């Protein structure tokens, strides 16, 4: 059974159909990608998975459990974490604090514990600091950056902090929304390594939305293609590159660059 399964998911806003009868699955410890021309509905699909949008029809299960009725924070608690297309780190807060936010759902000290500094709370605070630090080291952010205001970091570093933050939630599935956007060649290569390590060293499945087709093809085990809300193809990278429907979808849109990359 797949880790994440979508069946017949349909979503519409004010008369527009955004997703139509989408079937989709991600296996445990898999590295998969979701591609498609602009406006195909990829981020909307992410938003359905993470509980920000409620599809009108269909079902979403994760580890066998129903996800449709869950609020976004409950989805994260269940083990799905995400990053955002436009990096959304918490402003005016340090890098370390940003990553510590991921541990909120894995801990439970409340006001009383905080006010009276009970031993359990102090241990928990140490644990939160440690996990956050470990996630930051994992993505390659040096300790001398941890105290800085997160939004003052170089763009590439900010993206990595966002990934560290998502990892701090101890997910089983990580959704990355255009993680390569704005990265240099070198940074993209590092990203590929990082994604592999996330799966290999932490056992976390990774699902990417990405426009950089060569990156997608180099790292994914499985590629799914969405066009105008419809899933038009799924398979190994080589199959997708040769799929005429896919090529047509890209040529028909303004994503000619991506089409050529195929």
């Amino acid at each position, binding site marked *: 059974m797949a880790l994440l399964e979508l069946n017949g998911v349909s979503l519409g806003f004010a008369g527009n159909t955004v997703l139509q009868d989408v079937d989709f699955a991600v296996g445990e410890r898999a590295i998969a990608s979701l591609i498609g021309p602009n406006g195909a509905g990829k981020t909307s699909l992410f*938003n359905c998975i993470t509980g920000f949008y409620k599809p009108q029809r269909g079902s979403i299960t994760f580890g066998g459990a129903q996800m449709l009725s869950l609020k976004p924070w409950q989805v994260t608690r269940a083990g799905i974490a995400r990053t955002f297309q436009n990096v959304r780190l918490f402003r005016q807060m340090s890098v370390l604090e940003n990553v510590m936010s991921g541990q909120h759902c894995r801990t439970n000290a409340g006001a009383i514990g905080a006010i009276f500094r009970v031993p359990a709370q102090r241990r928990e605070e140490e644990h939160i600091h440690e996990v956050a630090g470990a996630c930051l080291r994992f993505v390659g952010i040096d300790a001398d950056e941890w105290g800085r205001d997160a939004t003052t970091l170089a763009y590439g570093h900010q993206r990595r902090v966002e990934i560290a933050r998502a990892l701090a939630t101890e997910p089983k599935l990580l959704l990355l929304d255009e993680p390569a956007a704005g990265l240099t060649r070198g940074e993209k290569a590092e990203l590929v390594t990082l994604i592999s390590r996330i799966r290999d060293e932490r056992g976390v499945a990774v699902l990417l939305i990405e426009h950089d087709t060569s990156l997608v093809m180099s790292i994914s085990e499985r590629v799914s293609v969405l066009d105008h809300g419809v899933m038009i193809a799924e398979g190994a990278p080589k199959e997708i590159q040769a799929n005429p429907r896919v090529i047509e979808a890209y040529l028909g849109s303004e994503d000619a660059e991506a089409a050529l990359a195929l």
Partner: protein
Amino acid sequence: MTLTTILAQQLVNGLVLGSFYALVALGYTMVFGVVKLLNFAHGDLYMVGAFTGLLALSAVAGTAGTSWVGVGLSILLAMIAVGFLGVVIERIAYAPMLRAPRLSILITALAVSLVLQNGVLTISNGQVLAFSPKLGFAGLNLGPVFINYKQIALAGTAAVLMIALELFITRTQYGRAMRAVSVDRDMSELMGIDVNRVIAVTFFVGSALAGAAGTMAGAYYGSVWYFMGFIIGLKAFTAAVIGGIGSIPGAMLGGLVLGLLESFGTQIPGIGSEWKDVFSFSVLILVLVFKPTGLLGKSEQERM
């Protein structure tokens, strides 16, 4: 008095009251539409309108007298003055804050409100000033009810202003631009609309309407007070929410609905005039909890 008489009288009262609420609510909703901000100081613009109207009346008293013509002129002058004040406030206090966090601009609006209130407080020494136009108490009998000419004039003027606004929105270029900016500000800018101009015009019109309502209220109730904008601001907000924030017909409808609700509400045993404000606020809270988009508003889907 029979039940029908009471209800009919309250109907009239409700419509009159509702006209005030509608005029002020329109300003709220228009501004919200283009800058997505609830102008906390809007109620105080109504109050400034009342004071300006009073000043205007004494100014024109010599030439136009203090009867219908004088009052009419005062309303006009107040509208222009308050309209400009609204634009000045927007330029000085809100325009620089549009990219700041939400909390900052809300507190700024609160600060503007306090400046207006305390400014007028200082000038008027906190006293309630009499606004006494010579409009008489004559009226007509319509069935069981007595409607005096002041009420007719008020409702009539409000109706004229609202029709004028509707025409402005639907028929003029500025009106169309306003609607475009309220739907999608960035897109409007790309389409070549001078968004800052549109915002300024919106503030002018919205504030002018509040100013008109203030002058009329001053003339109708006979007095003006530095704190009179506070409650009206809350009520107008309630009206705008009932009708659907951002919707202009909604503000008009909401204003009338609230006016009627309040008038009929005071007849419910137990809810006297002291509790009528609590009644209105409760309505506000109920609407926000159960139907936040109001009667005519559109559902907002969160866009990520």
